[in-house]
């Protein structure tokens, strides 16, 4: 785990290489986070993966989150891991909500970390964030014909009618 000073050094290093790619840093609960944007995240991860002294070769986890009242609304978290030094570093890509009817987009990192394949599909499935350059951008856990992005904070719970034997006549389209 890089400490707060080490995190600033990493941020500076990435920023000198890719100008303005790191929007900020945060360090809490002993976890270091680099903040970046949807267009820079691929460059940042490529740098952190390859640059000597960084070498975060293992992507432990990739997950999305919806911070609804906040702007930017979405974030994708990349939990990087350097196994030799046992250091974890989180990269957080902040993503704006483009508004009604449009889906936010971010660069896929499947080419750098093949493990991101399923996890990016999962984020797409639940948050409706499209990964540019992903080899197979489909839903993964929800049904293919499902409409809506269930893990968004404004998606209601109980919005789907549940079919029981006593309600099957009331659920439209079920008995057709």
């Amino acid at each position, binding site marked *: 785990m890089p400490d707060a000073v080490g995190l600033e050094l990493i941020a500076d290093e990435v920023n000198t290489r890719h100008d303005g790619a790191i929007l900020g840093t945060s360090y*809490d*609960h*002993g*976890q270091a986070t680099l903040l970046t944007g949807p267009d820079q995240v691929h460059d940042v991860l490529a740098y952190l993966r390859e640059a000597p002294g960084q070498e975060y*070769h*293992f*992507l*432990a*986890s990739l*997950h999305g*989150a*919806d*911070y609804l009242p906040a702007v930017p609304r979405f974030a994708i*978290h990349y*939990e990087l891991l350097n*196994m030799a030094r*046992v250091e*974890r570093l*989180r990269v957080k890509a902040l993503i704006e909500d483009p508004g009604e009817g449009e889906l936010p987009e971010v660069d896929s990192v499947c080419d750098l*970390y*093949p*493990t991101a*394949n*399923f*996890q990016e599909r*999962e984020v797409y499935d*639940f948050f409706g964030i499209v990964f540019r350059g992903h080899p197979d951008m489909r*839903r*993964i*856990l*929800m*049904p293919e014909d499902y409409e809506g992005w*269930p*893990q968004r*904070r404004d*998606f209601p*719970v109980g919005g789907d009618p549940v079919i029981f034997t006593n309600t099957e006549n009331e659920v439209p389209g079920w008995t057709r």
Partner: protein
Amino acid sequence: VDQVSTPTEQRWADTRRTPEQLGRDAVARTDAQVIGTSPIERTELEREEELFTINMGPHHPATHGVLRLLVSLEGEFVRDLNPVMGYVHTGIEKSCEQHPYWKVIPFVERMDYLSYYFNMEAFCGCVEKLLELEIPPRAKWLRTLHLELNRISSHLVGLGTTALDLGAISMFWYCFRERDKVLDLCEMSSGQRMHTRYFQVGGVFEDIPVGFAEKVRGFCKDMPERIDQYAALLDRNEIFLQRTKDVGVVPRERLLELGVTGPLLRAAGEPWDLRKVTDYLAYPELEFDVPVGTVGDNYDRYKVRLQEMRESVRIIEQCLDGLPEGPWIADDRKVVLPPRHELSTSMEALIHHFKLVTEGFRVPPGEAYYAIESPRGELGCFVVADGSAQPARVHMRDPSFVNLQSLREMCIGGYVADLIANLAMLDPILGGIDR
């Protein structure tokens, strides 16, 4: 013989015989024998002619749950494979956002339903990280004890069902017999056999009862002998060896790229175990080894799991020996329920009890990722807290979900029968994959 056009079809037509020409027993032979060519030689046929895409699952006993595999076959060979999942998706992560933190624990337990203690530990540990709450030493050791019991029972199910898929049904009964003993121990300490909800934020629900330690010691005494018996049944079993040796090998570097962790990675020779490299619970004070394989085939995966059970027994014994005295849950009244006896004498305790049960405790805003070593690899929990009594986001990085990506590379080019063995050795839990 029908009209033929391509050279390959001509060759097929030349070798085609009626059953009368072949004799009576021809029907019983395989088509490769009848036609006179081995399946390998047929790979030069055009893809469209020979590839046969079938669904394996969603309801196939060997898929260990409700997993569907879209398999493209060429004769007996697997040429492509795509897992399709989501059949047991129940929206647990979404449900977690609607409940107070203490009511989320039973939800997360039901994700990976064979390693429920691990899910609890991932979630509780993550919330404790957000609260910056230190749990008492006895709670740490009790958690470690139960985690390792759970690891044994989970590996036993994995081993038993694997052997069952390879045709050894007796292994299944023996493994489930020992697993039942672990479940008895769970029942003794928490009242439930599965999904115990034994871990709380701040410690554990209750101290272990009188006589529990002796029962666990008895189990630890028997278990190494049982593991030796399993090894005697399988280690040099000709059928088992032929089905597992040099099957499903994926190079270590590729496994790392695919994010595979746990026994699969260790079998390929990478000694990566979060219990050793990170500092959580009582593991830094315990002595145990990390078994690793050399080749990374299914036999190594089996051996690594078997040895991990032995190491778990060692850890459990050390936990019993070194179990510290003291409280088993933290003494933070804003998070942990006050002791029952205080409720009749202390107004303050009553208020705390009421607030904790009705609203739940609040967690300061922040986000944390907490990873532990589950029987299948790195089980991470990511929680976003917004300052209220309910989490704003709970995500489980389930090892089965990530490890499943390596199944394609294990199976391509192998037999269909090896696909079953590979899937069994991958040991995926569909409840964890679909959540």
